[in-house]
């Protein structure tokens, strides 16, 4: 982008993000009344609001990174805590509409090294996507794959369209509307994690639904 005064845009996004955050908290405070005519639109508004907040947060990060790679702040975190935090966020977003599960494979270590905030941003992207398309179930998994910590979001939707899978396989980022930005962002995050020459990856495939996988070396 070559707008003049792009800092203005950053400041604007920033402010919108905070206002929407407040709006989201306000909507959260509206009690459900057990009547679909009331509850459904409130719920839809809440989800949409949260989605926009998360997206703006990513937009800010991408904007700040500019053409440079993201610098992750790596520290030791518990994959167990991270998975459960994401599960709780997903459950709060879905409010019982979709069943949320979390599983950890036995060989997942107690700690792993990654940038917690970035990794959660990437996963929450996938969650929003799954919540939009899943029929009834969403599962968050942690396991070990090729020596990496693999964080997986799996749903029972009709799966990713072929165009997205093909694009993902080719490493292209300019595919599909809507999810394109989110995927591109997740890939940037995965890529910014490296350890002993090995870089993080995002993998997509279909297996009785869409499977989003983030590999952290």
């Amino acid at each position, binding site marked *: 982008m070559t707008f003049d005064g792009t800092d203005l845009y950053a400041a604007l996004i920033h402010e919108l993000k*905070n206002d929407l955050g407040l709006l989201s908290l306000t909507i959260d405070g509206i009690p459900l009344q057990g009547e679909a005519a009331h509850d459904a639109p409130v719920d839809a508004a809440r989800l949409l609001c949260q989605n926009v907040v998360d997206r703006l947060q990513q937009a800010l990060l991408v904007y700040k990174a500019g053409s440079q790679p993201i610098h992750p702040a790596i520290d*030791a975190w518990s994959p167990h805590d991270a998975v459960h*935090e994401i599960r*709780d966020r997903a459950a709060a977003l879905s409010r019982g509409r979709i069943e949320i599960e979390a599983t950890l494979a036995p060989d997942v270590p107690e700690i792993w090294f990654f940038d917690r905030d970035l990794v959660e941003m990437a996963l929450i992207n996938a969650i929003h996507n799954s919540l939009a398309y899943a029929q009834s179930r969403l599962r968050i998994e942690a396991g070990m794959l090729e020596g990496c910590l693999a964080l997986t979001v799996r749903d029972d939707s009709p799966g990713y369209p072929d165009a997205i899978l093909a694009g993902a396989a080719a490493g292209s980022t300019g595919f599909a509307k809507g999810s394109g930005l989110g995927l591109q962002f997740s890939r940037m995050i995965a890529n910014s994690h490296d350890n002993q020459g090995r870089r993080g990856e995002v993998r997509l495939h279909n297996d009785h639904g869409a499977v989003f996988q983030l590999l952290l070396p």
Partner: protein
Amino acid sequence: MPGDSSVSAPAARTGNTFIDYSALRALVVEDYPGMRNALRLSLTNFGITRVQLAANAAEAIYQVKQKPYDFILCDFNLGEGRDGQQLLEELRHSHLISLETVFIMVTAESYYEKVVATAELAPDDYMIKPFSPEVLRSRLDSILLRKRAFRDVYRHFQAQELEASIAACDVLIKSQPKYLVDALRFKGELLVTLGRSEEAEALYQQVITLRAIPWARLGLARALHLQQKDEAAEKELRDVLEQAPEMVAAYDVLSDVCLAKKDALAAQEALQQGVAISARTVRRQQKLGDIAHANGDLDTARAAFSTVLEKGRHSVFVTPGDFGNLCRVQLEQGDVAAAADTLKKNKSTLQDSPEGQLVMAVAQGMLHAKSGDAKETEKALAAAAALRASGVRGDARLMLDLAGTCMASGRHDEADGIVAEVARNAHDSEALLSRAKQLYDEAGRADAGAAVLALATADVRKLNNEGVVLAQRGDFSTAVDKLLTACAEAPHNPRIMMNAVWVILKYLDKAGMDEKMLEAARQHLNEAERQAPGHARIAGLRLQLKDVESRFGIQPKNRS
């Protein structure tokens, strides 16, 4: 513990994970009323019913002084006044919150979050705004469980039983893989505090083998610096700053390393880089001002000292001496009007304490001397002399300023007395002694100055050296006499104080309990810490003092 199995069923790995939120006392610090209430609501929703609200740092400090809190949720940006990081630093520095208190910082920007997370005094966690209540809840859960696991570590630490605290870390390191890295981190800081820098080096290397995390590399650099391996320390720091340029604490250590290498310009540059990232930390600005001043870079020194006063308004880290520092630089720049303005604007603050009044008198003396008003100069010097006679003292720089003005007004005896006192209290500080010498050179009294300085430092040096030698020979009783005499002559000299404490403890160890001596050791150690906070020897002496106290079955008095 069932928790040390690497198998994963969540219930099996953590043992008792029940947290009674209804028993928790929480404080929300946030300047925006809408957000403040929303946060309170969130906390109430997950069972925390005892929630207090504060709109700014001053209110928060007031609340914390009224009663203890288990959890403080604080916005980084608090509008006018101190920000969340400054609040945290003050709370910890003044021992208003303990290690058990959970402090979570809320930041609006992911960049600040990085700075906050890598600050020397980091919060327990940070949340990027806006966040969902579930995330807050989940993070609070993990932190509370971690603090529960660290209970013994913290308990011993707070009782100043550092060895026992290290042993408790070792238990965690062995038995709780989830807290391995946290326990190593805490242990590393303890080892550095105790001056066990070789062990600290090995520990940080161990963490780096797991992954080269920036804080571990910073710890390694600090451990290397303590062993005077400054080349290696500098390399590590420059390297880690490439990887994590926002890690402000690394610039502070880098500046220490550069000073040790006698490269004051590089030390200044390092601090300037740190200040560029986080301008608000008062102590970093103070240090930058000092170094820039010594480097003759008056513009930078002035900017730094001005920032100290601007950003540090109401901060516990700002002392009357900071006003003196700014005035000194302004006068050295020949900007008499600005110095007068500094004094005028801060008059009421300075009048508040005797130390402030002394700064006022000394600065006014310099100012009037500079503008050639002999009568007003005399008046200011008389005020300073009266304050000094009643026992009021300023920092060494300020006292030398006073000596300079006295000398310029022909009050030679008074000047000599002040310089001698400064020299006795800083018999091993090259910078201060050379500044004192410069005063005499400028006044054309080089010979007189040499005599004053030689005499003042010789006494203290002699008593000190004799005391230490006697102690090494095992004659602790005479050694104590010598060093206590030295203490009386140089009541603010940290080196002498520390030697005296060391000798007294040796003496008690041999001769048995002597309540008066023990009290003297306590007082001198406190004074040493006031004069040289964070000096490498202090923690070790505290430990020995503690040892002696517990051997004689004495409950240590509360230090603060």
